């Protein structure tokens, strides 16, 4: 198989100082955006300016004002309060997917990479078979079986992201397995479990954290897409994707209904992508 999308080692940078400052900016901007989104989710969980489900028929599709920062929707519900709740849905799915895909992918990839031989052969054939599904298509198919809803969507996207994690873990483990310090540990009588915990995991961790950040942003996008398609978070719960779907019928009447949730999705994805890029460049000097 061809390794897809794997960055190849490049030459050293002619002007490293100037660029490393840019990388730091990327990481800081990314962390700031990611923190903002998580903060919105936490705030939304405990407090919203208005009850996000409260309909106000006298203020239907009203433009943004001090009382309604993001305006109101066709039922007079406060778009800002709903966006706060939407942040909760996005972060919940993002975290859930990172945990599901991370745990399963780590286990499968580490097993294949560490054992090698027939175990590796069989597992990787299976993973390659899974990898042939475009992730969103796989998530859609799983939702078709599991039914719509936040939890189902988390499981569906999480499973769809397992192959990427498993392939990455396997290649990391195979690279590390041949390192001298692992051989030394084995010669010193360390058990497989000790080697995995003390030597393999800590060395693989930076790349896995980067992948987790990518999985988070992929999950936020996929959740929004599935909810937009009516297969994700169900009304009256709030999700940015669902809000965009509702907004599409009122584009001329209430454009703010479409603008704010979309901008929040983009900001979240941008934030976690920048964090992933910044961390990747930090842990891999060749990318600087």
């Amino acid at each position, binding site marked *: 198989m061809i390794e897809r999308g794997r960055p190849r*080692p490049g*030459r050293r940078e002619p002007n490293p100082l100037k660029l490393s400052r840019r990388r730091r900016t990327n990481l800081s901007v990314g962390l700031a955006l990611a923190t903002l989104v998580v903060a919105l989710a936490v705030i939304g969980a405990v407090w919203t300016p208005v009850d996000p489900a409260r309909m106000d028929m006298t203020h239907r599709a009203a433009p943004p004002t001090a009382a309604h920062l993001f305006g109101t929707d066709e039922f007079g519900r406060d778009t800002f309060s709903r966006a706060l709740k939407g942040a909760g849905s996005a972060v919940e799915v993002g975290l859930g997917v990172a945990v599901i895909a991370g745990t399963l992918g780590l286990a499968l990839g580490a097993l294949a990479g560490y054992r090698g031989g027939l175990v590796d052969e069989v597992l990787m054939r299976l993973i390659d078979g899974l990898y042939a599904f*475009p992730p969103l*298509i796989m998530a859609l198919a799983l939702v078709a079986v599991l039914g719509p809803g936040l939890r189902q969507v988390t499981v569906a996207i999480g499973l769809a992201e397992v192959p990427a994690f498993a392939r990455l873990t396997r290649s990391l483990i195979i690279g590390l397995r041949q390192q001298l310090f692992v051989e030394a540990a084995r010669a010193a009588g360390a058990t497989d479990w000790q080697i995995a915990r003390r030597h393999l995991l800590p060395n693989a961790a930076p790349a896995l954290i980067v992948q987790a950040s990518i999985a988070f942003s992929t999950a936020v996008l996929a959740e929004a897409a599935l909810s937009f398609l009516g297969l994700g978070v169900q009304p009256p719960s709030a999700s940015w994707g669902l809000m965009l779907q509702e907004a599409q019928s009122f584009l001329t009447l209430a454009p703010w209904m479409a603008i704010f949730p979309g901008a929040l999705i983009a900001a979240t994805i941008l934030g976690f992508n920048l964090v992933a890029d910044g961390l990747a460049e930090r842990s891999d000097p060749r990318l600087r």
Partner: protein
Amino acid sequence: MTVRAIGRRLAGLVLTILIASTLSFFVFNILPGDPAQVIVGLEGSPDSLQAVRAELGLDRPLGVRFAAWIGGLARGDLGRSIHYQQSVLSLILGRLPLTAALATLAILIAAAIGIPLGVLAAARRGQPVDWWATFFMQLGLAIPGFWLGILGIMVFSLNLHLLPPGGYAGREEGFLAGLEYLILPALTLAVGRAAVLTRLTRASMNESLAANYIQAARGKGVPEGRVLFRHGLRNAVIPVVTSAGLQVGALLAGSVVVERVFALPGLGTLLLGGVSNRDLPLVQGLVVFFVVVVSLVNLAVDLSYGAIDPRTRSGEVGG
């Protein structure tokens, strides 16, 4: 590439498709959800439920059904839709042209933007142009297609009245007249791909431009444009081309969302309808069809390696 190598690629393709279709079969047949119940409805009598189950072949043991599914696939039979009462393949073929046109248009736009932008960014590495290219790349990756489509409808259809806000009249008015309906959707679909292509091209060009043959070409006085495109890009384009399978997969997934935004009756709409109607045989057949398309693109990439990269022509391709 030797005949043996081609044979091995083909065997790999068959194996991947076999594994993927087996996985889809078990996902759709073991997990809860009874297609017969969907047809009969919740009020249907147990007798009619049993009759429908028999008609769909659901009363047969799992193993028999699996053998029938794989056997059907080998003959190009992707199953039968419950909702449409038609073969899945004929449904797919009816909607394929629209989605294919949309995806082709999108990837052409994406390549026309992404590859030159990536070359430019690499050629001016660390300069403002590079910064702006990276900025637009990050934005392109972050902005969801459906939001961009909605914004496009707001600006170009509802305010400027330049393009239709959705629908497709290509079937009645002919393909060229119908093209008007595909411009906004294709642009929407292209932005994310353009960002990915910029990123791939830029990274690959950075590596390629650091090579000795670039120094040599510059040293003997080859004009810079020729250095970039003939010497640099020719080598840098390989990772871009090998990502074609991923790109096609992403285009297919993206078309589901974009077809929804613009109300286009393509494969994505067919898949969504299948999911909403719980027409599991249709979804199963469509998903396997997507896997076959992606796998065939990967195979084509593998086989065309020699043409793109002469260094691999003599023998076996690595990897």
